[in-house]
């Protein structure tokens, strides 16, 4: 099991966002979460990536828990995360950003790995441009490259389609599908029914803090 979320509850002050939410994601699965704005999709992904802790319930990623620091490090080594923000250093070039994160991830042969991902996402020509000078779509692609660097067992993406053109969307859908067929897992949120249909094996909608299978 790549991800197991059991009966989690999360609230921010008086605002209850998630309640008794459970979800499991197995190998070769690609799960899409939909829902209206403010329904708790991003909160769920932040909890699954260990950036937030639930008030109640348990989250196990790759059968390990973020509550233990050593297990948390092991999980982070094996997952890739792209949230709403691309989380990049704007004054660094694309190359500097990707090399930095690859080094932090402990990838020894990081240059060929970066080259391979960048080529697939069509960013070869932008490698020496500062991230702050890129279009929003290309920044998103760099963020995606960053999350794919370690060929993660579980990829967590918040709205992969934001700011991307139709051709780039097809490429990303292809990447997600290839990952699922090669035994990896994907968890992503989306507002696009077409994108979800292209690359998800299951879809859920968050309604009143809980998941409903579509």
């Amino acid at each position: 099991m790549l991800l197991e979320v059991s009966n989690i509850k999360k609230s921010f002050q008086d605002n209850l966002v998630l309640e008794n939410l459970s979800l499991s994601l197995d190998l070769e699965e690609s799960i899409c979460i939909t829902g209206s704005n403010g329904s708790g999709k991003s909160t769920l992904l932040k909890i699954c990536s260990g950036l937030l802790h639930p008030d109640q319930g348990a989250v196990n990623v790759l059968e390990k828990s973020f509550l233990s620091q050593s297990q948390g490090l092991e999980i982070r080594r094996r997952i890739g995360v792209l949230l709403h923000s691309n989380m990049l250093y704007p004054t660094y070039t694309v190359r500097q950003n990707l090399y930095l994160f690859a080094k932090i991830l402990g990838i020894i042969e990081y240059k060929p790995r970066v080259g391979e991902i960048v080529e697939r996402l069509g960013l070869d020509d932008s490698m020496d441009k500062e991230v702050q000078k890129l279009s929003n779509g290309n920044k998103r692609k760099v963020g995606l490259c960053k999350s794919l660097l370690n060929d993660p067992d579980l990829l967590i993406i918040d709205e992969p389609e934001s700011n991307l053109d139709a051709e780039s969307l097809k490429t990303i859908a292809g990447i997600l599908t290839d990952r699922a067929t090669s035994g990896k897992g994907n968890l992503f949120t989306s507002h696009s029914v077409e994108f979800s249909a292209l690359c998800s094996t299951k879809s859920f909608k968050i309604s009143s803090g809980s998941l409903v299978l579509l």
Partner: protein
Amino acid sequence: MRNWIELLSTLTLKDIGLEIRTKEVFTTIILFSILVVSTFAITSNNTLQIPENVGAGIIWASVIFSGSIAMIKFFASEIENETLDAMLLMPVPRELIFFSKLFSFFIFLSISEMVIFATFSIFYNVNVFSTDVLLTAVIFNFGFSSIGTFFGTIVAKAKSKETLLALLIVPILIPLAMFAVEITSANLAGEQSENIKTWIGLAISFDIIFVVLLTFLFGKIVEE
């Protein structure tokens, strides 16, 4: 262990690389401090007659206030671009994130202080550079950087972060400031402080206690 050292140097070099591009921290500390030192010099009738403890106070007060403002800038871009979250999502122990920030700010502060000391030496026609003062600066900067890193992370998302950070760190820094002023004023008088060993011992103990305590607490506060 070797991996940890490599990781720590990668993170520290990253902060230094970013600062070389933006120069925000250096510009803030150096300009603000020069402004304070030169304002005192210009408004004094005779800079040669300023008491040594007042001169030392001018130096360290300008370092503390300019350093506090620079610390906010140091963290503001991390929060704005959510790159601190990016680091939290990476397989990096929280203690290493804390130490990389501490070391980076220590380097920025130490380089900036050399400019401040030189400016003070020119305006007041005294030599601030001595082994005692440089050792004092190292001990002070280490404590300041650890306290600033911890509280800088806490207040980085607050609205009145500049005021809040100064209010939080200045009272805690008082023992270190007293130590720095004592050693520097003795040096400005051309002497060595009588209790220099005691002061250095106390200041190093202060640094060790705060670094150990804040390293532990940093992991807790960045978790959520």
